[in-house]
């Protein structure tokens, strides 16, 4: 009986096919990132990279660890829902290292105007004033405590309430 012999062109084709398949899996092995496909059709480590980014705003809980008295005072007034960092700015660096990093003071004494200047776009019930009529040239903190806006500062003699 005649022995079956593989034609040489088929052998060459088979070699090329195997080479293609091997190079495909080889490329996949080296090029596809480790965490790819763990959660879905993307690199799962991206989530960890985003999660590891540094924060600037430390959150109200961090403030309360040391400044519980100020937080308690604020809770009595109309500003109770406002987070400390809304007005004082991002302070996670201060929370991490309170001794060397000190928070800046609010230097703009008309800071309140940002929210409370009268504007037709504001919700009607929101407390708002025309600041030029309401305060003239005086600063807000002369008559209002920042943490308890209905209260007056103790030191100075108070102006008649408007």
């Amino acid at each position, binding site marked *: 009986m005649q022995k079956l012999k593989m034609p040489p062109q088929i052998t060459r084709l088979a070699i090329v096919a195997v080479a293609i398949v091997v190079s495909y899996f080889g490329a996949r092995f080296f090029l596809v*990132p480790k965490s790819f496909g763990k*959660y*879905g*059709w*993307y*690199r799962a480590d*991206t*989530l*960890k990279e*985003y*999660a*590891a*980014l*540094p*924060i*600037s*705003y*430390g*959150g*109200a*809980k*961090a403030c309360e*660890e040391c400044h519980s008295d100020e937080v308690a005072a604020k809770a009595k007034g109309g*500003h109770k*829902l*406002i*987070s400390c*960092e*809304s007005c004082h*700015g*991002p302070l*996670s*660096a201060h*929370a*991490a290292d309170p001794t060397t990093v000190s928070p800046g003071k609010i230097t703009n004494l008309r800071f309140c105007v*940002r*929210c409370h*200047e009268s*504007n*037709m*776009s*504001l*919700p009607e019930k*929101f407390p708002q004033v025309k600041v030029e009529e309401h305060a003239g040239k005086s600063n807000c903190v002369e008559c209002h405590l920042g943490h308890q806006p209905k209260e007056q500062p103790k030191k100075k003699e108070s102006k008649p309430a408007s």
Partner: protein
Amino acid sequence: MKSSSPTTRRRWLTVLGQAVVGLVAVKAARPVKAAVQNALATAPAPKSYDPFAHSWRMCIDVEKCIGCGLCVEACKKENHVIPKAAYFRTWIERYIIKRGEPGSEDPRGETIVDSPNGGHDGFPPSTIPREEVLKSFFVPKLCNQCENSPCDQACPVGATFRTPDGAVIIDKTYCIGCGFCIQACPYGCRYLDPNTHMADKCTLCYHRLSRGLKTACVEVCPTGARILGDMKDSRPDNPIRQFVEKNKVQVIKPHLGTEPRVLYAGLDKEVR
């Protein structure tokens, strides 16, 4: 030799004892320090954060927004967004709806929308006289973190994707800066960062959520117009669930079928 040996031994034992106590104290101090650091917000991201255990959602009450712009400012500071106009991950729009022309059947007239510097510095009083205005309100905007996100589908290299906990983020190692996603987003929430030449967008403060903090915009919002919560948190006092149960909520451009994860209460029909 004999007389000195007890004192030497005693001294050695004392030193050894102190060393043991010291070592134990150091060992005990480490977990305590770690616990303290974990309790503080400045701790690194917890490794235990499981993206499958959360489903984040933001709700915005338009009626409460006062347009102070603290959220815009906080977002820029927290995420180091380019401090120029036109680069915003969140911004505020002021809608002014004029009264209809005298004699027209529609009491609502022209709608005017403005957003000076994205609302970053608050809003100056409008130049439109009060008598002509029917109503006016502020609408805070940000990436809607769509369930069915067009940007995710437009990306040719698969750099943008939805996380299991409901944020749409960009893998910066894949992004080629082609800008297709920027064109695909119907809400205009993306921009091309001129420094990195890559697309950039709101990440729903992923680095804060994974640390157990609120997003920067929610943290600083003075009126509680923005709230953020976990829909997988089944406690009855979960504010986000209460908000969704209590209010009539709506999304922006519902006809596009993008299924945004940012819900609005009190939206008017003019808001786009």
